[in-house]
């Protein structure tokens, strides 16, 4: 066991909303320094990736992503839409190519405007998203973290909590089927500590509201997370939810959604991520004993160039009537790739966890990796879980032996211009 792992007492997961890897971090691959790629290990963009539009004209990726008002209406990310994005309308059946060529066509179904449909190919240059790109280059960036299902939020977030969506591929209320328990309930049953920190009551929790009724003690707010970091009273496992809507604060001020779900402001999400990092980093005892995973629930319909790989099938099948594609889904391939970064003082600067580009050396992660990691690390793997979760890769082995010094670490100051 490494020093980093033996010092680890807390795992914190922050799950953002609806942005693809290439959209947020693909621009890292285009940064040059002294005539060379500055980040050669990042499996980002070459600048030549393209999709055909509805006029069959090629549309290249472009560095013109905007913080807000560009992806309105919200890009489609329900199961049939993502099927079109990945397979570009190839007929159902064996051997369909995951060409990643249908994103522009699918966004046209939302916009009915050819020019606007091109916005789905936009990406941020690293200077536009300084928090995420700094964390990605300073700690461990996963080249191969995928959403669990080629579908929307609710079913994907279910994988982060239960290691399965119990057969759901949509946004419907799902039944929790025994003997599978959430990772929080597993922790409590074993005498461990776990919390879900939602932003505030006006934002609340997103998809496991059954726990809000049945296990209210596991919930707390963002303010409590900040206090728990300062007081070194974090639970062993924490899951953080950003603010999901614009609303007035208690004193009448403006609270912006920080989840980065289109059409919410990306910069507000950057501030939120920075505030979580700062809270952990701000207390040396917490910093030394905590690993923070920043990950996105799914790609939100936005372009990514990496074809989702196969995965261990879940124990469920979604019928054709549920997928709305004319074919059932056996949970045997993953959704579109998303940003994921693991942060700890015990991670070397510039660590890249290889993805599908590494062939046999690939390490593939998805949201079932979260409960799998929690269960393996805190509970020695002792829990009933699906085949999918049991087969999921875990990620804490990335922590090494050397703790980085403070003068080698980033710090974020909020409110600058």
């Amino acid at each position, binding site marked *: 066991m490494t020093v980093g792992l033996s010092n680890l007492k807390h795992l914190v997961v922050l799950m953002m909303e609806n942005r693809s890897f290439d959209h947020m971090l693909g621009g890292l691959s285009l940064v040059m320094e002294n005539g060379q790629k500055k980040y050669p290990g990042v499996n980002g963009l070459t600048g030549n990736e393209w999709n055909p539009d509805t006029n069959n004209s090629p549309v290249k990726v472009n560095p013109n992503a905007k913080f807000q008002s560009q992806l309105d209406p919200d890009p489609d990310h329900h199961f049939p839409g993502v099927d079109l994005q990945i397979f570009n309308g190839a007929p159902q059946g064996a051997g369909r190519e995951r060409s990643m060529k249908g994103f522009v066509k699918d966004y046209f179904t939302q916009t009915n405007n050819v020019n606007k449909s091109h916005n789905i190919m936009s990406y941020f240059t690293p200077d536009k998203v300084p928090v995420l790109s700094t964390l990605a280059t300073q700690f461990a960036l996963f080249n191969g973290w995928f959403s669990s299902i080629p579908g929307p939020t609710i079913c994907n977030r279910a994988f982060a909590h239960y290691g399965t969506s119990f057969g759901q591929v949509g946004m419907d209320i799902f039944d929790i089927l025994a003997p599978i328990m959430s990772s929080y309930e597993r922790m409590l049953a074993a005498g461990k500590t776990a919390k879900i920190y939602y932003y505030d009551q006006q934002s609340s929790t997103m998809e496991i509201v059954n726990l809000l009724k049945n296990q209210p003690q596991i919930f707390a707010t963002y303010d409590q997370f900040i206090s728990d970091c300062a007081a070194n009273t974090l639970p062993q496992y924490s899951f953080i939810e950003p603010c999901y809507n614009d609303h007035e604060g208690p004193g009448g001020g403006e609270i912006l959604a920080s989840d980065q779900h289109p059409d919410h402001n990306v910069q507000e999400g950057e501030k939120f991520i920075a505030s979580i990092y700062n809270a952990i980093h701000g207390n040396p005892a917490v910093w030394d004993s905590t690993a923070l995973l920043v990950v996105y629930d799914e790609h939100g319909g936005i372009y990514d160039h990496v074809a989702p790989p196969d995965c261990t099938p879940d124990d469920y099948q979604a019928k054709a009537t549920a997928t709305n594609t004319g074919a059932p889904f056996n949970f045997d391939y993953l959704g579109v790739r998303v940003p994921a970064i693991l942060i700890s003082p015990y991670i070397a600067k510039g660590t890249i966890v290889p993805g599908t580009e590494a062939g046999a050396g690939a390490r593939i992660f998805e949201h079932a990796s979260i409960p799998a990691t929690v269960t393996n690390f805190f509970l020695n793997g002792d829990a009933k879980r699906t085949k999918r979760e049991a087969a999921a890769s875990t990620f804490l082995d990335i922590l090494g032996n050397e703790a980085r010094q403070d003068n080698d670490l980033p710090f974020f100051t909020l*409110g600058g211009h």
Partner: protein
Amino acid sequence: MASIVIKVPEPEKGSFNHNRPAGKLLQSQTLHLREALIKHLKDIADVLAIDPKSLKTEGEVSTYIQRATAILHTQARKP
């Protein structure tokens, strides 16, 4: 003091828009919360349907007390 200091910009003024139409995700969230409330109310209704005068043994009484307390304790909690 950390050596790599990153200034995080503020969103532009005027970014706040609580009149923005709620998307499918937020509408779904309200449905999930409503479902949880229905289950919660059903629990309350089930307990209220029991006539306390019908409880004869300490075991029956303690079960009733446990169910009522669990509901009231949850209500009293601040998340």
